[in-house]
């Protein structure tokens, strides 16, 4: 009972957060609404007893992605006000179509496949087990991902350094 | 490097005058900047003090000896003027001061700015502009410095009168204000 109430509360918060994030004219408000959505999602994970995932959800999505978004927004000029951003309905057809497609082709089969009469079993994926999984069967994937991220990081550094160098060149000239 | 004294300056620029009473060299209005540059080059590297002095038009009684050899008192009207006074020192030679003055009329007072020669004149010339109303030709940033931008008039001029007492507040003695207005109390 408690679990269900919690689920519904979190679900409503998540959906509302997502809607506000999309529809809000004020960008900063939008980002914070997005973060509320993330937080509600983390709560849902917790409800499923996937606490590590919940922690990572908060750490990565709120702590890192959210802050990154805020930084990006701080760099843009118009943040608030009526001309903050235009929300047009142009292309909304494609949006609805995509959402419907996801619903029909991904979620419905999943829901149909699941046995809804049973509530979720409290599986307890310990962090240790998760770590072993990551380091044993999926180690190559992990390494590739790490390599990719490192490459992206180095690329970003190189890109920003290039700009600096150009400036120095002009100074010399 | 020439000798650091006003004599060398007077020798180099004969159009400059020596004012014995004030102990100052009065620079000609035309080439004050040139003289200043020469002074800087000859070792007066430090301009300590810049200020203005306002002299109202006044009548001077002078005793002169006329052609007949008699002394008589003549009343002469001395025109009002503003002096911009610079006190120069030499840090390298540790000597000084050399006082130089730029003399200008009270109406539409203008003087050569010596800020390009000595940076230290920057704020002080602005102050002279603000309080005395002397226009400095060639000053890089001539704005009011102590008074606010909308202020009218130049308060350090001797004929300046306050437009109104904007800081007036009631005192226990209204009479003291009256006294002040009658000029009995000097404020």
């Amino acid at each position, binding site marked *: 009972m408690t679990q269900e109430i919690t689920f519904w509360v979190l679900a409503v918060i998540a959906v509302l957060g997502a809607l506000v994030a999309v529809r809000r004219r004020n960008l900063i408000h939008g980002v914070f609404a997005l973060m509320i959505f993330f937080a509600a999602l983390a709560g849902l994970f917790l409800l499923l007893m996937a606490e590590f995932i919940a922690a990572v959800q908060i750490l990565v999505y709120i702590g890192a992605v959210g802050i990154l978004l805020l930084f990006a927004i701080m*760099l843009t000029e118009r943040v608030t006000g009526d001309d903050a951003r235009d929300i047009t309905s142009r292309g909304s057809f494609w949006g609805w179509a995509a959402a419907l497609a996801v619903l029909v082709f991904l979620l419905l089969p999943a829901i149909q496949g699941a046995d809804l009469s049973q509530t979720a079993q409290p599986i307890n994926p310990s962090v240790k087990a998760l770590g072993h999984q990551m380091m044993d069967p999926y180690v190559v994937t992990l390494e590739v991902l790490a390599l990719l991220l490192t490459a992206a990081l180095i690329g970003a550094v190189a890109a920003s350094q290039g700009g600096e160098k150009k400036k120095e060149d002009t100074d010399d000239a | 490097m020439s000798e650091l004294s006003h004599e060398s300056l007077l020798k180099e620029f004969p159009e400059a005058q020596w004012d014995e009473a*004030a102990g100052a060299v009065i620079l000609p209005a035309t080439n004050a900047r040139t003289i200043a540059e020469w002074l800087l080059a000859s070792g007066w590297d430090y301009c*300590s003090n810049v200020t203005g002095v306002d002299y109202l038009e006044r009548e001077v009684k002078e005793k002169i000896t006329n052609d007949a050899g008699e002394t008589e008192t003549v009343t002469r009207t001395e025109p009002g003027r503003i002096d911009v006074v610079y*006190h120069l020192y030499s840090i390298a030679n540790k000597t000084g001061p050399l006082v130089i003055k730029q003399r200008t009329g009270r109406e539409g007072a203008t003087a050569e700015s010596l800020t390009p020669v*000595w940076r*230290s004149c920057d704020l002080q010339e602005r102050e002279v502009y603000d309080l005395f109303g002397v226009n400095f030709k060639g000053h890089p940033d001539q704005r009011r410095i102590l008074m606010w931008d909308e202020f009218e008039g130049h308060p350090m001029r001797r004929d300046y009168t306050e437009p109104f007492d904007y800081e007036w507040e009631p005192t226990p003695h209204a009479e003291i204000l009256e006294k002040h207005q009658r000029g009995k109390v000097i404020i």
Partner: protein
Amino acid sequence: MSTTAAPNYELLQQEGLETSLLEISMGPHHPSTHGVFRMDVKLDGETVVELKPVFGYLHRNHEKLAENMSYLSSMPFTDRLDYFNSMTNNWAYALAAEQLVEVEVPERAEYLRVIMAELTRLVNHVTLVGFFVNDLGALGTPLMYAFREREKILDLFEQASGARMMCNYFRFGGLRNDVPEGWLDRTRELVDRFPAFLDEYEQLLSENEIILSRTQGVGNLSRELAINAGITGPMLRASGVNYDLRKVDAYGIYDRFKFRVPYTDGDTGDCYDRFMIRMLEMRESVAILKQALADIPEGDIIGKVSKVFKPKPGETYGRIEGPKGELGFYLIADGTPKPYRYRVRPPSLINLTVLREMCLGGKIADAVVILGSIDIVLGEVDR
């Protein structure tokens, strides 16, 4: 050697990436502008790209006031110029006025003047260092230690002159009154204990890594610009110029004392130098005080000056080495009891000339530190 134009900071502009500047009006009410001073700052991120000092909030036209009252009456107003150093302000004014009438100052008065001036220098430097470290972000601890020592000196001032800060103690031709009994002994005791405090102060501050990295290389001022911009006092000596009016003019009886003038080799001229020069100057002041307190004779305290001070027409410029720099008074007498022209050369104002140059390109935190290292008092800047 024209140094008019300040270096122009070029905004870092990359292709397709524009940054907008943040304009901040720091002051007139800001915790670290040392009074009602304002800096209109333009920031690119945290970097200062434009800085415009604005002052005048405390302007009361001290010069005009003085021109409308007798010579003596403007003595208490000089206290209020640089309200940390009323004794030296008094001295500068008295020196200029004495040049007009050529009065002989008695021996004891001269010694007391030196003692007062050097005590004032201690007061100023010790509190300045406190404020400076406060601007660096310390929570007032050095400032409180400084205030403790300052309070001891101010007690001495109070005993001699009746007031802690607005001393109004000097008179044309001497001093207002003799110091009370036992004052010299108390001063000796204080001077003997002062170096111990300075040791502690240096231990607290001068090797602290954070202070070093915050001040070194910040607000560099070259020797040429410093001379040309009329910078005086410890700031000039920190830029590598050996110029101390106590040595150069030897006004008063400074030629009788043996003391050294600390200065730098002029390579850096940054905030750390300005801070350290003041620390070192305090030790020299202690040395002067020790000599003066040992040699002070008995005798009169004021020379023969007529009760109505009425100098002959003429003009004079008297200057002393104030704790903040060269403090000068330019007086024009016209034979009346009031000065025709009375002008203060304020070291605080003129040292501000280079504020913009020193701050540009630095961080906003540096601007605060640089302002702190210049050592201004708004009572003197605005007059």
